């Protein structure tokens, strides 16, 4: 389809003022790089013993208790029993949501610029773009798997406020879940150049009786020339599930 010729204005933007000082991290701690959690929260965020296919772990939940409302505690038990099919991340490779994406057993990369912090996760190539410009969560967004994130610095801590989730993700394979009212506040604090203390406060008035909190160290991946690769399990699952297609 060809549009008619038209006259348009080609406007060159102004040149920037000379002498504007900018630093690549604007004086903030440098979170750039590839990081990974080294715990078993992806299987179960609470204390758990080992079993076949599940490594044992000391939990990441402060107080080790998740304050479910009574109906939700029963739902969690149901989820646990049916997790092989009911966990959308485990069974379909769908995006894990926040904070689960942080502690999946895969690396992720933080790309930190003054205006935007991006986090790219190797698992299912999940991705978050975090505006740092003080803008509010937009009104009326479609529900999302990874939430809408808004970031700011509180001193030397990167604080990320996340809402606008759907209710499709779990916190782990053990069936810990939330509703679309989920609100997460993450805190990333560099404790030394190669370690981040990661904390996430979880609030969901439809499911829990009060907010609760997880925390864990994140370890910088210092391997030479490391890059995020691809774990495209949606594709792998398709190859498996549809290998005898068509079915009719």
């Amino acid at each position, binding site marked *: *389809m*060809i*549009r008619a010729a*038209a006259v*348009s204005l*080609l*406007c*060159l*933007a102004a*040149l*920037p003022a000379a002498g504007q000082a*900018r*630093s*690549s991290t604007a004086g903030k701690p440098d979170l*750039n790089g590839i990081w990974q959690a080294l715990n078993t929260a992806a299987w179960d965020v609470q204390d758990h013993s080992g079993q076949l296919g599940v490594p044992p772990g000391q939990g990441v939940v402060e107080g080790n208790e998740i304050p479910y409302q009574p109906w939700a505690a029963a739902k969690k038990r149901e989820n646990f029993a049916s997790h092989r099919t009911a966990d*959308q991340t485990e069974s*379909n*490779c*769908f*995006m894990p949501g926040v904070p689960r994406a942080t502690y999946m057993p895969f690396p992720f*990369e933080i*790309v*930190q*610029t003054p205006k*935007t912090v*991006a986090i*790219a996760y190797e698992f*299912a*190539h*999940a*991705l978050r*773009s975090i*505006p740092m410009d003080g*803008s509010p969560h*937009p009104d009326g*967004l*479609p529900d*999302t*798997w*990874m939430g*809408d994130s808004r970031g700011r610095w509180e001193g030397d801590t990167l604080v990320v406020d996340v809402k606008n989730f759907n209710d*499709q993700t779990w916190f782990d394979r053990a069936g810990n879940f939330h509703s679309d009212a989920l609100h997460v506040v993450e805190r990333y604090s560099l404790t030394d150049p190669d370690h981040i203390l990661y904390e996430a406060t979880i609030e969901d008035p439809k499911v829990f009786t009060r907010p609760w909190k997880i925390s864990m160290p994140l370890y910088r991946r210092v391997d030479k*020339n490391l*890059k*995020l*690769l*691809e774990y*495209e399990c*949606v*594709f792998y699952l*398709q*190859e*498996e*599930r*549809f*290998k005898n*297609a*068509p*079915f*009719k």
Partner: protein
Amino acid sequence: MLPSNRFLLRMAAAAIVTLAPAASAWSAAPRTPDGQPDLQGMYTRNGVVGLEANAPENPIDPSGKNPLSVSNRGDGLGPYPKIFGEGGTVLRGGQRGQQRRAGIVDPPDKKLPWRPEQDAKRRDFLLHMNPPADLGHVELNARCTLPGLFQGEDNNNPYQFLQRPQEVVILYDYNHTSRVIHLDGRPHLGKNIRLFMGDSLGHWEGDTLLVDTTNFNGKTAYSREIPYLSDALHTVERFTIVDANTIDYEITIEDPTLFTKPWKVAGYFTRAPKDIESLEFACAEGSQTLVNMFGKPPER
């Protein structure tokens, strides 16, 4: 009787190639703190469309014969209410209608240098794509895979360019794809690691970012008529800032399994309006494509 779309396209494409100069860099582009020309921001992509001469008709989009053809709708969105394709009017803001190169620019006659046996093979492959004979004949882009190269015109999905001292990172709205282009002089990955997006290494030559990409996995398409590129694919891309709102783009596509020599496609990125942000596009999570085609797979 109106000339056919294809005729008009050829005329316009020829006009564009002769009218527009090659990219000349904007040497006054602002710099990042480490001295790279600064191309950060939100952009829409234009014109990177590999429409070849004497292309076979593609069965997925037999325009004109199929009411579901996306080509029958100006918004490119296929069989949905038109408004779903109009996001592009917001994304493009005032940046439409630039006099720039677009589409296949080498060879000038747009006849791609297929190896004859590979051209025959892909034409036959296309004939088995609708209905798809099996999973292997399903259009790759319909499977919510990572897209590989920039393909076709996309009215709905902008790109965010970010820069760090040792990397340029492009975040695609489409299928939440991200591409890290390493500027630190590292070597390419070993040959046994294959990726949908390949392994991109870049360096600045003046105000042009040159990106060399290898390690593709042979599971990406290039267009509706080129349903796959091979794992021998090697690309060289040139991103040149030409003014405050425009990045000129050219890609050299070299795939010795399929083609006898490299060919080139051009286009450009234009800045989106200020309030445009990246949004989540959760492709696999909402896709019913394979079930629509084949039915529900049997329980495992």
